[in-house]
């Protein structure tokens, strides 16, 4: 259970199993589950690996540059 707090230990299949969220849903701030559900919802990107990497970059920008 402790390991599941580490985002890098999740497989794509486990991430995808968390499902997506609708656009009007409030962000789930739990980590990494809420983070992965947001990544799954980035439907303009092609696959889970790309979505997770992109959201990680976006998070860095939002937390610092803005």
């Amino acid at each position, binding site marked *: 259970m402790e390991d599941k707090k580490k985002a890098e230990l999740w497989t794509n299949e486990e991430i995808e199993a968390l499902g997506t969220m609708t656009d009007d849903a409030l962000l789930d701030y739990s980590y990494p589950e809420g983070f992965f559900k947001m990544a799954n919802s980035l439907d*303009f990107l092609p696959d889970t690996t790309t979505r997770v990497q992109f959201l990680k970059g976006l998070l860095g920008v939002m937390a610092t540059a803005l």
Partner: protein
Amino acid sequence: MDAKSLLQERRELFENVFELQHNNRTLTASNNSYWSIFDAGYTNVEEALYDYDKLFHVQDDFFERYQFDAHMNPKCFQTMRLVQEIDFGRTVTTKNKDSIVVLDANYMNQDEYPSLRNDRDGFYWSEILKRKSEEKLTVGQVKAIGRRMMEMGAYSSRVTSALKDRHGQLVQWKYGNTMPFETIISWLRGMKHTSLDMRQKKGELKETLDVLFEKDCMPLLHAAAAYQGDDCIAALGIPMMGYSVLNRKQFEELYWPYLKRSIDFCVEKNVKIFFYCEAEMLRFSEYFRNIPKGTAILQLENDNIFEVRKALPNMALAGGMPVDMLYNGTKEECEDYAKKLISEIGDGFVLTQDKMLCTRTDAKRENLLAVNEIARTYNG
């Protein structure tokens, strides 16, 4: 001369600047933040900042008009559009929409240093995001920000290509390596609370800076060492901002160890450094005295550049042209001052503005054009 030849010539001239060798003309660089938007005729910065196509043309025209050899910030203030419609973060435009303010904000509690250093992404996601927005974010809003980040990436590539392939001009650096103290003071704790932490939680702060250096700075240093591109003055940039609030003891404990490791790495790997020093660095100049000639260019802001020249004969300098004079002075006054800088600073000098060009009253077009013409034609 075509853009490719211009780029090559500029790279060679900048190599000479690093080595403090003589060039037959003085190189110039823009230190523009968003003044170029007013120069293009806009009175409301948001008109251009919130439209990447307009912003591209603002910058492309700026590159063409002034023929700078290089640019500190060729992409202008590009991130604001990401959160155009939501109240998020610490960067805002003023009521008249004629300037941008970055607020000194605190988003992190004093007891959260362990969270930051142990699981930064988790901490950012669970705590920082909600503290930076007035209301809870929705999934749709984050998706919209993500789409705009892709637009920003396309805009960024467009600017980079135009700068290199059409204008033959350089960017100041490829990788910007901010020291870990900047992460704390500029992005997470703000000036006031960082000052408190330096007194009350110095051990926690220091331990966190150590971790951030390994996580953030070392990968950038290695990337800079591997960089083979031809479109930058230096592979590595070190923007120095928060250091200006530190006394010498604090600087030695919280800033210099990371700066020194970065410098030593670059010297060993032969990586060129472009330092961008906000505020005044002269009181810390002795720390820079042993940097080998040929390693770095130092962009100055409020320092007396003539004094820094005497204190640091080992480094190339950039800066010097007073923004106040560029707006309030006559064309002749600007030309005379540019000649004085070129004559007295001598070799190893890049003529730039002494502060970021931001608001409309930071420069007049005719003065900036005149100064750049002097740089091209006057040889001391």
